[in-house]
């Protein structure tokens, strides 16, 4: 039961790295022997996944990552290396995260997962989600974690990027997560389960909102870069630990919010502050939330 995160990190020319990820006591992240710089994105996602897997006593998440600052070079490198990485890591969950949204590469990647790791659950956030939807592959995914604007993109069959979401989806009160979850599912733009991040987190299964998480309300979390990444990391790690997907989604939303409360979030804090709060949050709450009680 292993999570493999496929992503990039924001270092120009940063090398391709494959291996288990570890969160050091000073909060820094290591993949194999390589240090991954503190940043939103991959470091935040993997940091949260490490915290969850450590609490649960499950395998450390694996990462296949390369440096990319937006030109797509690192993205191409990780996609090229994916078949071999799948053969080595034998993941039960594969999460596509910060990647240049290149549809053709995502089509090959999903094919590679189906060949090399049959049965593995697919998760997508960030550019991985953009590519999966734009390539028409969203319905093959188990879990996606859009914000409400990205949900509008998932619901718009013509959009290939959230920057081009049709305005007709945007009502007078903004995007409606309940309506758009249904539309996205109906039009083949959504994973089986969605966590729609927002002031209230909506969890939808096959287009129907089946749970919401609204407490604690920590408005500053929206301002902090990387808190969506920590949510995706938590959900992916819970999924790899064997949680049913809806439980993984609800527990991730709860833990992320509670960490925001515990750290006393302000708009100037960083995702690594939230990751640092997670061990206590999981220790104090996860047993009651899910029955996953550390011995």
């Amino acid at each position, binding site marked *: 039961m292993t999570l493999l995160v496929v992503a*990039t*990190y*924001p270092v*120009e020319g940063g090398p391709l790295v494959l291996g288990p990820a570890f969160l050091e006591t000073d909060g820094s992240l290591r993949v194999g022997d390589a240090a991954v*710089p503190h*940043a*939103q*994105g*991959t470091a935040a996602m993997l940091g949260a996944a490490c915290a969850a897997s450590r609490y649960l006593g499950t395998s450390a998440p694996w990462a296949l990552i390369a440096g*990319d*600052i*937006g*030109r*797509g070079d*690192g*993205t191409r490198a990780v996609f090229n290396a994916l078949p071999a990485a799948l053969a080595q890591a034998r993941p039960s969950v594969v999460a596509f995260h*910060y*990647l*240049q*949204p*290149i*549809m*053709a590469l995502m089509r090959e990647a999903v094919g590679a997962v189906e060949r090399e790791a049959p049965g593995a659950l697919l998760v997508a*956030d*960030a*550019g*991985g*989600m*953009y*590519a999966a939807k*734009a*390539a028409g592959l969203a319905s093959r995914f188990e879990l996606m974690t859009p*914000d409400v*604007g*990205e949900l509008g993109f998932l619901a718009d069959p*013509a*959009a*290939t*990027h*959230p*920057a*081009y*979401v*049709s*305005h007709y989806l*945007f009502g007078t009160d903004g995007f409606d997560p309940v309506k758009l979850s249904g539309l996205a599912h109906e039009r083949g733009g959504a994973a089986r389960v969605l966590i729609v991040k927002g002031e209230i987190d909506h969890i939808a299964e096959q287009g129907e909102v089946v749970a919401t998480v609204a407490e604690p309300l920590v*408005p*500053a979390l*929206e*301002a*902090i*870069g*990387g*808190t*969506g990444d920590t949510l995706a990391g938590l959900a992916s790690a819970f999924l790899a630990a064997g949680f049913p997907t809806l439980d993984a989604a609800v527990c991730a939303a709860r833990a992320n919010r509670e960490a925001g409360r515990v750290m006393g979030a*302000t*708009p*100037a804090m*960083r995702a690594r502050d939230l990751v640092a709060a997670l061990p206590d949050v999981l220790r104090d709450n996860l047993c009651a939330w899910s029955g996953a009680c550390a011995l």
Partner: protein
Amino acid sequence: MLFRKKDRREAPDAHEASGLFLFDQVPDALWAERVLKRAGYDYALVAPPHHLRAGCDLAVAVPRVEHVGAERLLRESGVPVRGWVDDPGSSAAPVDLVTTVDFGDHLMVRAGNMKIVVDKNTLVIVNTSGGGCPDIPYLNVELVGRRLDEAPRPKSLGYTLCGLMLDRAYEEACALLGVEPA
């Protein structure tokens, strides 16, 4: 208005009279925009036609009648153009939904799903968030901790549509806080 347009492009039939320059990368489209703007061309940044999109593209629309001159100018300036589409049909412009949240000492500006957060007292950028392309964490590293009036523009550092939308948020934050954009 997200992108500068001259009055004559506001005519109802102006869109039909435009064609599109296509590019392999967003920075190339932004480079073309700068070249055409400097030369006084009428232009708009838009989505390429659906069947020609690779996933994260941007195209530049100019009136068809100016195609030849504009293409020559781009070629002479060294801008790599993938091609020209004479009849693009409907081409959506990037979303222009800008909202703000006032946290007291901090102002957050959202453009689409991209956000920038500025300390109102010091003008220091304390956070950027949203978006999923690889230049977003890079822009976060490059921008956070710098003053709004000293930071480079996100569109001069970024490579994708996410970076372009963050630039829109940056532009609005500058306007609201009385800062001249870089």
